[in-house]
């Protein structure tokens, strides 16, 4: 049975094979591709800073960050100030936060039989978009991070405005998602603590419990994170067994016959990416407890994504306190990029997981460009014997509507996948 899954920044077709009333296998197909990697070929290196955010309307900022870092990795001696690094990290945090709010109020609620809450999605996301615009001039689709730093400079009064946007967002979180002081939610190590509170997130978690859905959505229990920064840690985890020694060289992309999306694996194995993966690598106490009880079920996945909002808001406040405004925003690279020949790569944590960009430059022009998006990791289409992460999470389910719910807990992005 083929079902068109809509409103995932585009669509995907899921072809369900049923056996004895259960899902035996799911074929996932994306019907289009725009071939951005081809569009980039032959263009000036800096043009990628403008083109790549246009891969995706909801996580384009992560594409900007991956682009600038990939270009910078082509240099041997590139210098960045701490100020530039912190500013970049802040704006990427804000993008992740806006994404998670939208996912919760626009995508997730209707799947639990609740009315979509457009205004609860737009209020905090507009605050986060403003926070990005302080630095980048606008959101979406700024190109404010350039090789050597950021194009903006900011003052203390800008920071006051920024802090107010963050505090308003924290307040929104505390009044809506989890009615509690964020600090106590952040420090919580026990799922029962969280369930004793009220709020939009808690309601959803309680539905999962009362419907006995705690076992649903389990996959390989295998996670990977490539985009290290001051908050996220690079590494992979098989259940809770952690290894921080991973390299992009073991990542492989391959074509599929039935879909425009390419598969991606690490040492020929499929890994889950995204907030749950990041929390597992970071060993976030609350998520560790959820995982101990319910494994990599959709309960843990949903909790991890919403929990990340609170963590990133808190971490952003710390980053702002570390900003030294007397530092330069930009240091001119020793060599003009228009004369550069070299290759490089970068990975950043986008809202949905690890995003990888690879670039080859020849005399300042793009000779080759490769993009691997988070949704490719989670939605890689495997075979019945070796299913992909989201396929495995759906196999064995009885109802297609539950399968759609499980599928969307991965926060699928069609446009990214069909770059």
């Amino acid at each position: 049975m083929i079902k068109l899954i809509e409103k995932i920044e585009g669509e995907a077709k899921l072809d369900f094979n049923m056996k004895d009333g259960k899902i035996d296998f799911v074929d996932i197909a994306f019907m289009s591709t725009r071939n951005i990697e081809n569009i980039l070929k032959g263009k000036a290196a800096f043009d990628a800073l403008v083109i790549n955010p246009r891969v995706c309307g909801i996580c384009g900022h992560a594409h900007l960050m991956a682009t600038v870092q990939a270009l910078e990795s082509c240099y041997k001696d590139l210098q960045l100030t701490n100020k530039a690094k912190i500013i970049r990290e802040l704006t990427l945090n804000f993008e992740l936060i806006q994404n998670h709010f939208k996912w919760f109020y626009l995508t997730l609620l209707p799947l639990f039989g609740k009315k979509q809450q457009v205004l609860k999605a737009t209020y905090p996301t507009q605050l986060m978009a403003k926070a990005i615009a302080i630095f980048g001039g606008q959101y979406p689709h700024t190109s404010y991070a350039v090789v050597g730093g950021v194009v903006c400079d900011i003052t203390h009064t800008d920071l006051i405005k920024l802090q107010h946007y963050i505090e308003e967002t924290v307040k929104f979180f505390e009044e809506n998602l989890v009615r509690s002081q964020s600090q106590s939610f952040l420090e919580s190590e026990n799922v029962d603590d969280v369930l004793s509170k009220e709020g939009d997130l808690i309601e959803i978690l309680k539905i999962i419990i009362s419907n006995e859905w705690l076992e649903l959505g389990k996959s390989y229990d295998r996670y990977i994170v490539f985009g290290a920064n001051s908050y996220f840690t690079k590494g992979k985890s098989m259940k809770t067994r952690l290894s921080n020694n991973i390299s992009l060289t073991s990542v492989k992309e391959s074509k599929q016959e039935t879909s425009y999306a390419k598969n991606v694996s690490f040492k020929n194995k499929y890994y889950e990416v995204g907030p749950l993966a990041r929390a597992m690598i970071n060993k976030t106490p609350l998520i560790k407890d959820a995982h101990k009880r319910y494994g990599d079920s959709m309960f843990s996945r949903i909790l991890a994504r919403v929990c990340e909002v609170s963590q990133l808001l808190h971490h952003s406040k710390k980053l702002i306190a570390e900003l030294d405004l007397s530092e330069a925003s930009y240091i001119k690279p020793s060599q003009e990029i228009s004369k550069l020949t070299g290759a490089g790569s970068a990975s950043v944590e986008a809202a949905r997981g690890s995003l990888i960009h690879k670039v080859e430059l020849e005399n300042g022009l793009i000779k080759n460009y490769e993009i691997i998006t988070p949704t490719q990791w989670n939605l890689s289409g495997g075979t019945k014997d070796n299913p992909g992460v989201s396929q495995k999470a759906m196999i064995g389910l009885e109802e297609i509507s539950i399968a759609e719910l499980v599928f969307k807990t991965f926060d699928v992005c069609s446009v990214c996948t069909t770059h």
Partner: protein
Amino acid sequence: MKTKVLWLSAIACNGNTHSFLNYPYMEQFLNDFEFIYHPVIDTDYTLEEIVSSVIACDILLIEGSIAEDFQRADTSIVKIIQTYSKIVKKIVTVGTCATFGGIFRESDYKNVSGLHFNQELPTNTFREIKDKTVSISGCPIHPEVLVNTLYAIKKDIRLELDKYLRPKEYFAYTIHNGCTRNEYFEYKVDNHKFGELEGCMFYDHGCQAPYTQGSCNKILWNEINSKTRAGLPCMGCTEPGFPRENLFSTKKNMGIPENLPVGVGKRVYLTLAGITKAFTIERLEKKLLND
């Protein structure tokens, strides 16, 4: 009565969808308009229902570049546009891709273009519906420009349009109008460096604001800022040729920028530049805050 709107995505990144979600008075908007389909907002109809029948609708919004071989729900986007354009009062192209072809003109589909223009050139496929089309270009669109245009349509306000069918109220201006770096341009102080509050990006860093039409520095982005104010060159994203190549550098002939402000001849420009070069304005040579 709520005005019924169909938001149809063609070859897109959904950037316009998300930019629209930044409209600050969404509650008011949703009191007056209802989507029969939207890429993110829940609607009464599925995409499959939209393409398999004809649902009553007042305004058709198209996001993304258009190509015959691009399908949504197994139906060519061209066919969906043809079906709905017949029944709606107005059609709005949302963004530069839908208006001129934009970035995805270069995607792998065949004969990709905007609804009525392939960059500057008029196209023929949809000429019967040209009279009822309004173009809102921009990559992405400014949410306020889109929303205000939809209200103008709802209230039957006559919109003056430019040659690309863009409302003059927003597109008669240049991005340069209202830029906080204006004085560096006016007095030809060409010492811009990235990461600073001072300087104009027109001379070296490819800023297209003086010859790009739109209201970015009049109706600010996210209500607070603009790219050029922040220090990022205008990329000309509302124009038919977007994206041109070498976006971060200014193309010059014998030291003179190849593209000059809209309506300003080379001679006028050179005369003005010559005069300004004859004097130095100390205030503009120094740092703004810590001199």
